[in-house]
């Protein structure tokens, strides 16, 4: 059984994510998952076996903090080296409109594998826009509340008290999105090609035209015309 669609070098490909975005993405994949599993030892009751993997609760706590620092550094890395990319990303999220709403409404059927017709999408479709809004927001909340809990003595006690539930809530929503995102970005047959967009940086031209028609038009259509001319 094929899990992820084949990477087709023979077909024409277009760039979807630059190197900085990809490094940030995969850096966050590793650090987020490390933080998640070392953090779950406190969230899930009786997770002694999970803590044991990281060398007990002390080890899990240490790994959690190290991974958290690197997670923060990847955010800084992204901001420093591709600030324009972040701005463009946010700009695209702000284009959330009718087509995105239709996408989100029809998506459950698509999710299960029924054929559906979906209106043209911008660089990020309705679902990706939702993920792009929720996950980073939650991660920022996690980072802020995390450092407050790490250094409670330099913050007001009231803030520390709020940080604990905030960290838990943000963790649940971030993980929820990460689960869906991980599946949709890889094993879901319709969206699997986007995996290569994040791994190798390019996607098939025909896939881009079909899945992100507006983005393709705006980004590559002019170049196509120039080439033809």
């Amino acid at each position, binding site marked *: 059984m094929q899990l992820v669609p084949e990477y087709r070098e023979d077909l024409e490909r277009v760039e979807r994510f630059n190197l900085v975005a990809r490094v940030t993405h995969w850096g966050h994949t590793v650090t987020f998952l490390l933080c998640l599993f070392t953090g779950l030892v406190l969230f899930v009751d009786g997770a002694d076996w999970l803590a044991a993997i990281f060398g007990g609760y002390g080890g899990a706590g240490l790994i959690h903090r190290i991974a958290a620092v690197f997670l923060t550094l990847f955010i800084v890395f992204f901001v420093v080296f591709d600030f324009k990319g972040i701005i463009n990303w946010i700009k695209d999220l702000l284009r959330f409109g009718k087509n995105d709403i239709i996408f989100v409404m029809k998506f459950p059927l*698509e*999710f299960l594998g029924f054929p559906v017709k979906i209106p043209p999408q911008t660089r990020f479709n309705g679902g990706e826009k939702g993920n792009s809004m929720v996950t980073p927001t939650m991660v920022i909340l996690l980072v802020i509340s995390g450092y407050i809990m790490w250094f409670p003595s330099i913050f007001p006690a*009231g803030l520390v008290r709020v940080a604990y539930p905030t960290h838990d809530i943000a963790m649940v929503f971030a993980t929820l999105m990460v689960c869906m995102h991980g*599946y949709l970005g890889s094993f879901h*047959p319709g*969206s699997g090609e986007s995996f290569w967009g994040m791994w190798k940086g390019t996607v098939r031209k025909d896939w881009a035209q079909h*899945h992100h028609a507006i983005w393709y038009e705006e980004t590559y259509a002019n170049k196509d015309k120039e080439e033809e001319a």
Partner: protein
Amino acid sequence: MAYMTNLYDSSKCTACRGCMIACKEWNQLPAVMEPFKGNYSTHDDTNGDTFTIIKFMEEEDPVDGIRWNFIKFNCFHCLDPACMKVCPQQAYSKTEWGATIHDPDKCIGCQYCTYACPFHIPKYRKREDKITKCTFCADRVAEGLTPACARTCPANALKFGDRAELLAEAEERVKFLRTNGFPRATIYGKLELGGLNNIYVLTDTPDKFGLPVDPHIPKQIPFWQDWVQPWLGWLIPLALAGSATSFVTTRILANKHAGHEEPGEHVERGHE
């Protein structure tokens, strides 16, 4: 078994600090030196190696002049303790006579309890990476002895006994104090937080002793512990189950609809 309580009477306390020493000795706690801060208190607050302290509070009143209030400050052994509620390792437990005790073997040093406690009592002991606090000398009481602090008090300001009996005694004492020069005398620990297992007779309002007048467990704690922690987390397995369902159904439907499709060529349908 009925609740067993310490009754502390601030009108009798001479601030000799014998209880602090007895506590240190029984619990084998090393001395913690702190610099002089301009008053008689040895410590501002309890710490990982100091379970009980005597606070000296100077109080200037326009009518009464200067008043010097003493209070023995330590864990109040709440009847419904917040520390026990938030602890992810169930390190806290209540003894049948009402002491809130903490098991260091279960503790992982997360300090959730420190910030849940309305009195900020559980303290982090860095050298062991664990929380410590007053044990109410549960080990002594189990052997029929009284807690070390109550045992040593020379002024009879500290008395260990049945909670109901001591409450009655405290009420009598406060009535006496109110008619004998302490009109604002009050009991602390009878109603606060639904009852504390340490009863205080105070010669003035609690705020004059550095205690919260109306202590409460921060509202986010029941929300966090009763809703977020047990229920919200189920969204994660739900997402995983949804993905697993989709993984199966997409592949079944793909086989049904499009036998001619090349593997990986799902562009006709796919959309994420």
